[in-house]
Structures are given as C-alpha cells and as structure tokens.
C-alpha cells in the first residue's frame, strides 16, 4: 500500500472516531440541558463551564491603567445551572455545525479512497467543507461572546483590581482558510470538468 493510501486510511479512521465523538456530544448536550433545567441536580452541585473572556487586571483599584490585560479561556463553577444550560444549548448548535462539516469531510476521504478524486460530487463536498469552516469561524466568536455574556451576567465577580468581560475573538486566518478551501473546490470543479471531457473523448 502506498504512503498516500496509508495516510488517507489513517485520516479516514481519525475522522470516523471524531464523527462518533461528535454524535455523542450532540446527543449528550440536550440531555444535560434537560437535566439542568428540570431540577434533577442538587443545589450543592456546581457545573463548571469554560468560555472565552477578556480581562483587565489593575495593580490598584484606583488606577485606570491596567497592569495586565488580554483574552483567555476561563472556567467558572456555576451554581445557577440555568445559565450553564443556555451555554450548552449554544454548544449544541456548534456541535451540529461541526458534524455537518465532518460529514462532508468524511465523504471527501471516502471518495479519495474509492479512487474518484476528480468529480463534481467531490468538488461539492470540498466546497461545503469550506463553507462550514467559514460559518464556524464567524459563529464561534459569536457563540463565545454570547456564552460569556450569559455566564458573567449570572455571577458576581466583584474582585478589586480585576475586570472580566465577554470577549469577541474573530480569527481572520481561520476565515482565510475557509475561503481558500472554497477556492480549491472551484479549481477541483474545473479539474472534474476536464476529466469528464477526457472520458467523453472517444
């Protein structure tokens, strides 16, 4: 078996595992939302939720110039599980977008393994992978901002010298990757057309 075929097989296996994990996540999130909102959890049970937040750290409460500032993934232990349930609902939408993109990516690898790389169907699947990347790159910061705003509105973080706020972290390079994949699908459409021309030349 050639190196290329081995690599394709390995990638297909990894994507298969990611697909199963994605399905588990997509099924688990709504169940957790139901558990959280139905009062099945004890009041003493905390739910830890991670989200993207901006922060400013002031050496003295009176000063306006932050000593340290930036954005980071932080985790909050939520006593109010209602807020965490909303975050999980947002995560469910993310999981569904992920599964949609993964489904098309798995098709791409399945067609590679079947030895039909230059076809209109392949170009369509690659285009949908690019569109999903693009949608995800725009949706992810919005989801993180919404999650952060939801969580921070429900907790009291009044620590002297520290400001925490929901952060919007748009990845420009991620958007370019999505656009590049869509352009690649256009190139593949041309290749598929040439292939069809060749196969219909007698």
């Amino acid at each position, binding site marked *: 078996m050639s190196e290329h075929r081995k690599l394709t097989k390995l990638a297909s296996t990894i994507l298969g595992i990611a697909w199963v994990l994605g399905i588990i996540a997509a099924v688990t999130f709504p169940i957790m939302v139901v558990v959280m909102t139905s009062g099945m959890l004890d009041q003493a049970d905390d739910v830890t939720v991670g989200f993207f937040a901006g922060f400013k750290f002031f050496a003295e409460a009176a000063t306006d110039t932050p000593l340290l500032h930036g954005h980071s993934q932080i985790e909050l232990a939520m006593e109010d599980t209602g807020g965490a349930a909303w975050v999980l609902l947002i995560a469910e939408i993310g999981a569904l977008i992920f599964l949609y993109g993964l489904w098309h990516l798995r098709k791409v690898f399945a067609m590679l393994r079947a030895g039909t790389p230059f076809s209109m169907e392949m170009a369509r699947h690659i285009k949908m992978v690019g569109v999903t990347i693009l949608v995800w790159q725009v949706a992810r910061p919005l989801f993180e901002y919404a999650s952060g705003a939801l969580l921070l509105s429900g907790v009291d973080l009044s620590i002297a010298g520290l400001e925490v706020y929901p952060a919007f972290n748009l990845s420009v390079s991620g958007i370019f990757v999505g656009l590049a994949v869509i352009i690649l699908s256009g190139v593949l459409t041309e290749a598929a057309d040439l292939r*069809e*021309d060749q196969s*219909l*030349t*007698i």
Partner: protein
Amino acid sequence: MIKVNLDLLLVQRKKTLTELSEEVGITLANLSVLKTGKARAIRFSTLEALCKALDCTPGDLLEVA
C-alpha cells in the same frame, strides 16, 4: 451541435455495434457514448478507424444538426 450518424451507417453496412467494436478496437461502452451523442470530442485516429471500418468519409459520419 454535431450529430453522429453511426446508427444509420451501421444499418446501411449491415453491421452491429459489437462487430464494429471488435473491428476498430474501441470498447462497446465508448462506441455507445458516440452513438447516443454523449461524446464531447472524437480523436482523428478514432475517426479514421471508424471511416475505414464503415467505408465512409468523416462527412458521412458527422453532420451539423
């Protein structure tokens, strides 16, 4: 649009597609593509082989529809 008169020439020469396929060395599938008008292009070598087998000219085989 170019029309391929292969079916008409086959009837006139009393030949089947299978016989023609064996004679010119083109697969039955490719000849079928040519006969049904799905072909996008034809090589000069294919055209020459078909014309020899069917004893005709390219003008007999192809026409502008």
